[in-house]
């Protein structure tokens, strides 16, 4: 009896063990796959950046930005049913009519902000929290505001689990920025608005930069870069994400 029991128990333990090992195997396998996919994504972004150099006046994105892109696990920021496409160079739906931006556009927007280690950045429109995570890798503090409550809570939870301690998520209206924490070195506005909220311009430090993607949820038509110079004068630069000259011929 005992022996049988023992055997049984051993088998049971064995079974548990083997299932565990198997699961671990799949888990590490999956992690490896994601890492590989992420590396492929980085290659693609780098190739795209070379073609776009015309607009951003340099041949490649800031290596710091690319390092952040290759570190942040994008698949953690998409709904489970989209995980297989997480590293495809395209925007994905994340529910509530919102999207996680195309990786290339995220890299371009982050690069346009010229992030530095000691900086403070504000994001209006947290969404999945992916952009905030990328910024958190690059700057000292990220403050992010999401107007859609369930999305904001999800992002807050997610960023906490992934240990992004320098990101603060708030749920609410982003129109007035985050006065207590301002002014900011950089601001990203991904929430749709009919115009650039004046309070955000005010909360931009002299020398600061604000980036706004313009278009629909799935297609960014252009990026607007708002720059405030040392004297506080504000200008915008309108940037097409791609190298496309409207005229053929020599013009």
């Amino acid at each position: 009896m005992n022996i049988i029991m023992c055997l049984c128990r051993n088998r049971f333990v064995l079974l548990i063990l083997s299932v565990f090992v198997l699961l671990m195997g799949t888990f590490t396998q999956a992690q490896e796959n994601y890492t590989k996919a992420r590396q492929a994504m980085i290659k693609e972004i780098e190739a795209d950046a070379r073609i776009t150099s015309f607009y951003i006046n340099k041949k490649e994105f800031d290596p710091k930005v690319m390092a952040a892109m290759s570190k942040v696990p994008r698949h953690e920021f998409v709904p489970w049913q989209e995980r297989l496409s997480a590293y495809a160079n395209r925007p994905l739906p994340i529910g509530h009519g919102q999207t996680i931006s195309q990786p290339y556009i995220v890299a371009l927007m982050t690069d346009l902000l010229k992030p530095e280690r000691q900086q403070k950045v504000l994001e209006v429109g947290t969404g999945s929290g992916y952009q905030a995570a990328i910024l958190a890798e690059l700057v000292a503090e990220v403050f992010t505001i999401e107007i859609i409550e369930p999305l904001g809570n999800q992002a807050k939870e997610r960023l906490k689990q992934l240990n992004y301690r320098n990101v603060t998520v708030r749920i609410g209206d982003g129109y007035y920025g985050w006065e207590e924490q301002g002014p900011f070195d950089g601001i990203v506005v991904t929430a749709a608005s009919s115009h650039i909220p004046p309070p955000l311009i005010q909360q931009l430090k002299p020398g600061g930069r604000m980036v706004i993607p313009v278009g629909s949820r799935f297609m960014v038509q252009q990026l607007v870069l708002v720059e405030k110079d040392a004297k506080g004068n504000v200008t915008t630069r309108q940037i097409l994400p791609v190298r496309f000259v409207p005229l053929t011929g020599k013009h």
Partner: protein
Amino acid sequence: MMENKKPPPFYSIALLSASSLAYEVLLMRLFSIIQWHHFAYMIISLALLGYGASGTFLSLTAHRLLPRFPLAYLGNVAMFGLSAVGCYLIAQQVSFNPEEILWDPNQPLRLLLIYLVLTLPFFFVANGIGLALTHYRGEITRVYAADLLGASIGSLSIVLLLFLVYPATALQILGTLGFAAAALASWELKYQPRRIALVLILLSFTPLMLPAGWLALAISPYKGMNQSLQISGTRIIDEYSSPLGLISVMESSQIPLRHAPGLSLNASGEPPSQLGVFTDADAMTVITAHTDERDKLSYLDQVTSALPYHINKPEKILILGAGGGAEVLQANYHGAGHIDAVELNPQIIDLVREKYKDFAGGLYTAANVDVHIAEARGFVSGSAERYDLIQIALLDSFGASSAGLYSLSENYLYTVQALQEYLARLSPGGMLAISRWIKLPPRDTLKLFATAVEALRQSGIDESGNRLVLIRGWQTSTLLVKNSPFSEKEILGIKKFCEARSFDTAYYPGITAAETNRYNVLAEPYFFQGAQVLLSDEAATYLQNYKFNLQPASDDQPYFFHFFKWGALNEILALRGQGGMPLLEWGYLILIATLIQALIASVVLILLPLLLSRRLLNKKTKNISHSRISGYFIALGLAFLFIEIAFIQKFILFLHHPLYATAMVLASFLLFAGLGSAWSQRYANPQSDKNGVKGAVTGIISVGLLYLLALGPLFSMLNWLPIFMKVIISVLLIAPLAFCMGMPFPLGMARLGKAAPAFIPWVWGVNGCASVLSAVIATILAIHFGFTVVVISALMLYGMAMLVFNGGWGKE
């Protein structure tokens, strides 16, 4: 065949045909609400291939179905009632998102599923009518007449119905009518057992009893209204529906809407509280709360469209596309004297004038404001007033505009002729101001500039350069066209206005490169460069080399929003990975995609019966030429709709209301074509059918040519008439043309009925396919060559059809 055959179920056929035409219009309405207009167009075009599929199906099965005609007919008609409701409800549950179509392989499959499901209702209708045509082949002309007359009634009734009920209710009613058409047939055909009629009548109530939850419209989460509704505190407080659109009023109780597109970077204030008004769940306009604090409205002076108020003090103002009243408020803010505000949709006017009158502070009932329910162009051409300022608002939403969704829609607001009419209505020193969204690379703004240059040139003004001003922010641009040269002082005012708001001047008389591209910096000063070149001798080369189509639109080619050029397609597709997709002008590509899909499906549907059906290939018919028959019916199918579509557009310019003109012209064409078909019965014999077709085609060609030459001058001569007179004149003008157009098809069918009846279902399918292709090809032709060419092509096709008919069906 059978002795003592009962008369055809004319009433049932007419009711079925009326319901199916109404259903087609309704589907367009429903899909414009839940999806976007251009995809609605593609989905419905392809669903109509159900007619072609029915022809194929009947070719193969008619010999089994015809002996049981009453049952087969009843069954198909009842199935229409069932599928009209059921298939829509299924199709709207397929979560299709057009914006992902080039990325996500699942999307095309979902789209295919939507087509296939929606094909069914049309398939059943076509089966019913096709069976009737085959069964009563001695009376084909009269059966076909019932079909056309029914369609005529349907085209008018659906417009009326959509005024009375919400689209979802209209869907239930059409389902009911489908079953009613079956019940009617069982009575007309004296179908035994009689209790079947009772069952059908009972069934006809089922669509009306569907739970409300099933009927709720599944609107795409990416449409503007659903995006806004994600924000807490927002809710729809009012809904109105008409064939012009579904109007939803949204309140945002926690977070203000703050709708102020194009606001200057230097602005400080924010707008007062606002209500959002959506049309078809998109294209938001706002009703702004009344406020006595002038400061709160200062944002109205911080947008590009405020420019004309800073040049001279316009007293008499015309606002086209007034919507919720933002531009009227802006004019009041700047101390306007009298304002005429024109808006097409009476339900939007009522919101501001009645329902939310207090909220809006009586904006539309103020003593200095006259609000007119009218189409903008029609109002201008019928007016004898002179204005100091004609302001054309930003009518479309940025999203729809930037994705190129309007490229298929005819638009008579921004044509060369339209601009000429506006200019003719200006007082001395008066100005026309048109604002547009900025797109990159520039499209609308530069095309509008080119249009203005052309309009001035055609009005006999050579020095157009000193009458134009173009300014831009990062979001919007405003073009001014003055009817006299701008003075030095005025130009100084313009510069001051722009400098204070960080807007850029892109063109004014005497501008230098250094004065452009300062605040909203582009890689190159595209707008300045474009404006300069468009005023120079190199304009033609520039238009040629530009990667988007900037050629001004005309009344004959009214496609202002058609920017697509084939030359740029490869380059744009290659840029897909870097977010190059917004450069694609979707509307046109969808049109082409529709054509390709319809063409492939049609070829399969037409050839399949020839390959599979022994009846079409047996001894009796081996001398019949397939190509001659299909040539005749394809030519007719193409030509009929070519003329119908082209004349709808010609009459819109006369009747000035896109909706009423379309319904009225369509109904008249179908009515008189139906009468023509009934009349053609007297020619339906081997001795005189050639003469019938010859007479009809001669009539079509001569009247068609006459109208091409005479309608334009006639319409401008009669433009002063009241609308009911115009309608009567239009009906009278359509009558002879449509009457003749109703004859060739039934005469061809009748001849076929004698020579080779097995071909009738096949020809019915050929006609169905040709009709789908026709609508698409007509639009493509109009975009590239204009509606005149569409009409001429139709006349040539009729001529060809006549030659084929004269030669007979036999092989040569």
